[in-house]
């Protein structure tokens, strides 16, 4: 699911300073990118946060954006991990309508997804589900006919698999030689 089509998973180790999110988001915005998912949180190192982005764009544009991201002073490391062996997770909270008649059916449905019921009310319940975006989408699809009142999803968090040497995601430095371009193929500028 990673590295397919125009979906790219990029992780960044950033200094935990005000404005860093604006800088990063601004970079993508200036290149007309849509950030389809974003997750930020503390890292294992004090003063540094990790960001995971999922962005859509062609290889050329993603390569440019990654290099530009690396130029930001507050960004310590960046890696495009789309083609790597990674573990990635999202979390969703789904508030679904329930009636005495549907409660049992929903509970049964949720079970194979290893989702948890985290809140139960007279007319609704809140389900917490963790996994890939596809898995969350599948559960959502099943619950939709019962009436989903509210859906809240986190962005994706991703980590490169440790493999034998226990490497970390930051070891993947960006490839300055990658270009994503064929010979003489670049976006053509208009006449200005």
């Amino acid at each position, binding site marked *: 699911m990673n590295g397919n089509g125009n979906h790219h998973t990029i992780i960044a180790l*950033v200094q935990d300073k005000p404005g860093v999110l604006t800088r990063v988001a601004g970079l993508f915005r200036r290149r007309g990118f849509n950030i389809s998912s974003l997750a930020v949180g503390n890292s294992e190192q004090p003063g540094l946060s990790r960001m995971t982005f999922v962005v859509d764009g062609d290889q050329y544009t993603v390569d440019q954006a990654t290099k530009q991201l690396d*130029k930001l002073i507050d960004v310590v490391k960046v890696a495009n991990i789309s083609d790597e062996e990674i573990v990635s997770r999202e979390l969703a909270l789904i508030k679904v309508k329930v009636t005495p008649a549907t409660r049992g059916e929903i509970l049964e449905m949720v079970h194979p997804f290893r989702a948890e019921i985290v809140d139960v009310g007279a007319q609704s319940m809140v389900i917490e589900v963790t996994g890939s975006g596809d898995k969350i989408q599948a559960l959502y699809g099943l619950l939709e006919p019962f009436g989903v009142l509210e859906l809240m999803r986190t962005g994706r968090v991703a980590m490169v698999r440790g493999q034998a040497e226990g490497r970390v995601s930051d070891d993947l430095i960006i490839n*300055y030689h990658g270009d994503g371009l064929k010979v003489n*193929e670049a976006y053509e500028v208009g*006449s200005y």
Partner: protein
Amino acid sequence: MELTGAEIVCESLLKEGVEVIFGLPGGAVLPFYGALSGYPQLRHILVRHEQAAAMAADGYARATGKVGVCTATSGPGATNLATGIAGAMMDSVPMVAITGQVPRPAIGRDSFQETDITGITLPITKHNMLVLNVEDVAPAVKEAFHIARTGRPGPVLLDIPKDVLVGERWPFIWPDKVNLPGYNPPGEADAVQVSQACELINQAQRPVILAGHGILISHAYAELKELAEKAQIPVITTLLGIGSFPTGHLLHAGMPGMHGMAYASLAIDNADLLISLGMRFDDRVTGRLSDFAPNAKVVHVDVDPSEFHKNVRATVPVLGELKQVLGQMLPQVERKTHLDWLQHIDTLRAEHPSLHIRQTDELLPQYVLRQLSDITEGNAIIVTGVGQHQMWAAQHYAYKEPNTLLTSGGLGAMGFEVPAALGAKVGRPDKAVWSIAGDGGFQMTMCDLATAVENNIDVKFAILNNGTLGMVRQWQDFFYDKDYFATVYSGNPDFIKLAEAYGIPGIRVTDKTQVATSIRQAMATPGPVVLDFIVKQDEQVYPMIPAGESVNEMMEEPIPQRVM
């Protein structure tokens, strides 16, 4: 001893070796000015508009290679700096801009003269910081200068709230080093990349060097000259690379691109290898990318990896600081003669004499620049804005030394010439400095003639006055059916009376025969002088490769009669 934030800024500027600050005070930055008056070692030059402060700092930085410093108050002061900051960003000029901000408790309340200047300048600075604590002031100044001058240089803005400048006191402790884990500008290049690049250079039959601003920034002129001479490779200098290689050198092959010399663009078209040194393949250089250098492999040396493959795919990208990289490459580059290739370029030069000025009694702007070049012997610092005058200045002045053409390249800002020339002269009092303007650009920043007068900054202000926005009119002429809408300046002031109003001499030149004497007269007059050259109106810049087209669509001067 404990100092105020403002005093800490001043102490920090001294530590950074700052000699001069261009600025204009206002409410929020006034505490800084209050401290500055106690530091006579920090010369302050009061401008008439904050844009001039940023552009003067830019001109100072380009002329000296040092970091230019400008300052302004919050709100409109800060936003007025923006055009000057954007120009420094586009042209990789080291600059530190210090702005006052409203006091911390007032931030976010739409207070008087509050703007989010760090937000506004986010995409036009290399970095910026809102300094929220007095203890952060000294490290922030140190970081700002470090970031501005190292790697690929650029502008850094420090926004300091008024109550950080004056409210609290803190001991002045100058940090030993900067703490920037995310910022590691490259030095030497990878040995494999260097040897791959040299292999391509040694194999090439028809190589050209494209020398950009990076040569000037990294002071790599000697290395560039050695490389060119050792392997007998012609050197094409980009607009911002002019001065990185002597114009009169036998291997110098002109400027490429939209208004470059035809033989330079044709040489790139015929080349089998581009050795691109500290240049970024601007669209004004390349034209249509798919037709640019169709037969060439590309060795691209740059300190900024995001330049690789951005516009042109590099066969071998070499990441590193240019002077060091050239030092690594030189021993591996073989001596060559490239006789056939150099002869071919000579033939192109003979067949496409782009720089000939036609014989006429009319006062041609090109003629003015050629005369200026001859009389100053190519030794002046020439400062231009953007447009026709800029291209003629790039084409017809024989630059001998580095950092002698200062021009608004990437941003293309009209009006840059006047304040940037002031900054250049302040930084290089030993050099003659000429501001070359059109009548359009001059009127954007001529208010800062007062700054020249007040500080007796000896800049000669030449106006190539054709009564129009010349380059825009040229486009209307070529591409918009000669619909000269909104490009005629029919209400221009009398620039001689204007000069007189500022108390400085003004010389009007209407005839070709007066050009040389007027230039000599200006040079013999100490202090600022305005020269108003009334030039032929519909003179066009040739050659021209229309935007988005290729060398195959190049338009050369249609007049058949050419005389040296």
